[in-house]
């Protein structure tokens, strides 16, 4: 782990643990002999915070120079893939499976990967047909098929 990763992961564990303590505040803690539902979550949350503090301390002691592991986020694929998945969820009940799949496949054009429009169009149609045959006909999953 690079120093920046240690800082960020330390921060993540502290925040996550903190949230778990907060969210578990109204759960009964109980005693060891008679545990409430809040007992284990509280122990784990405190553990998370502890881990976070340790990582922070490590980051503080680590040499900041020559750090190759800079944390960079690839926003384009992150957003595209997330939108594609959420799009699937939104479109499926409205458009049905084949059309949703076709739209999703076509959206790959935005990925920045090399592609060819004719090929992509063919694959979009092919995937639509395949998904219909595989999931709906062969596996008999109860999935909306058409927009009407």
């Amino acid at each position, binding site marked *: 782990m690079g120093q920046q990763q240690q800082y960020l992961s330390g921060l993540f564990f502290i925040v996550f643990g903190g949230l778990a303590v907060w969210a578990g505040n109204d759960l009964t803690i109980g005693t060891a002999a008679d545990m409430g539902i809040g007992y284990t979550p509280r122990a784990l949350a405190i553990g998370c915070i502890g881990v*976070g503090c340790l990582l922070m301390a490590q980051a503080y002691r680590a040499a900041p120079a020559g750090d190759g592991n800079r944390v960079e986020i690839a926003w384009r694929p992150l957003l595209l893939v997330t939108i594609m998945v959420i799009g699937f969820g939104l479109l499926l009940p409205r458009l049905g499976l084949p059309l949703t799949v076709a739209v999703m496949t076509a959206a790959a054009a935005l990925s*920045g990967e090399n592609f060819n429009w004719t090929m992509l169009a063919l694959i979009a149609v092919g995937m639509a047909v395949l998904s219909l045959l595989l999931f709906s006909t062969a596996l008999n999953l109860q999935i909306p098929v058409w927009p009407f």
Partner: protein
Amino acid sequence: MDLFSNLALGFSVALTLKNLFYCFAGALFGTLIGVLPGIGPLATIAMLLPITFHLEPTGALIMLAGIFYGAQYGGSTTAILVNLPGESSSVVTALDGYQMARQGRAGIALATAALASFFAGCVATIVIAVAAPALSRMALLFGPPEFTALMVMGLFAAVVLASGSIIASIGMVMVGMLLGLVGTDVTTGEQRFVFGVRQIYDGIDFVVVAMGLFGVSEIIANLADRHTRELPSGKITRLMPTKEDIKQAAPATIRGTLLGSILGVLPGGGALVSSFASYSLEKRLAKDPSRFGKGAIEGVAGPEAANNAGAQASFIPMLALGIPPNAVMALMIAAMTIHGITPGPKFLTDQPSLFWGMIVSMWIGNMILVVLNLPLVGIWVKLLKIPYAYLFPAILVFCCVGVYSINYRVFDVFLMAGFGVFGYFLRRIGCEPAPLVLGFILGPMVEEQFRRTLLLSDGDFTIFLTRPLSAALIGVTAALLLMMALPSLRKSREEAFREQD
């Protein structure tokens, strides 16, 4: 003698036409998806889970096991052909396998990998058949304190044997356990961390978590990773190894198999550790260690045997104790639960035909893989040439349909998107999501046993140390942690995993 009648029962189940077909289909689909770059066995199983939903339990389990070793196998093919390990346990195979391919010996490397895996698979199947019933008999002596201690030991061992920062991995286990506790508590019926969201009253679905953290976030990572893939060059001509090759590969295969069978049973063990251990063993035993990394056939045979034996041996604790030794087995437990089967000490005695059928089908599956893979190598090579722009939407469709079809609701699809983003951020900050998945499955189990233990002892924590079995397990855990605190051992652990980069 018991063993033989059990195996006979297994054969009678596994050799029915229907089950042979499921075994074949699983191995084929598993290889197909496993060959695709950047998709490990975990994501493969998660993706293909929905196609098993509508089968009866035996068929479903046979197919899932087939998918698992198919995926494992597909990973080695890409490692050898394009130096792109489909999953972490074939990283080692890529070291010498790819060099062999560059020297025009790709076919021999693939055949060696296939035959070594097959041999290891045969041995491991027998090991499971012998060890699993013994272990489950032993488990009948276990009470809540022993189970708690065993699971805690398993979690720590998993962390130590995984690559990456130990502290961060311990953190990931705890995050996973917390996420696993979301929903209605079994003992009291009260709800935890649901924030009024009706859909998670029964807890977060494991498949959603696994698919988000491994399927979706791996796709994001692959798209972000823009280094160009090397395409396999040249035709694969010769498949059969020469006598000289066999003489070098055979002892390595046997050693790898033994190593894998032992390491696979240990908590946290499995394919990854076994293949690393076997590679370093072969390198140490070789007369001329400098050949390694330059196409030494032992460097393919040993680790391939070890990772296959390790992968199969990790079924032992999962089936016999109901405790998953690694993330893949955690997913297998989740899959079995969907079919209404709870693995554990009672599984063997209650459903012998299911258990033995599955074991025998593993052996058959390994044979199918050899038959399937060598002639079909050409097709796998073509698959590797498909541009990612066409591939990733298809994979995403599979993930989405898979998650949707668990409960037929779009909520799960949205939740998977969330876990995908979460998983991507975790990877970026250097936290591997595998320990989280393990914690997620074990969290509720640990809590239940822990609660019972302290109820039993009236809140006295020394019960873990006064019962001999649990004390021994706690002792092992403590020793593991102490070992990690020693600087010299920490260094050799770091070195062992360095070959990955």
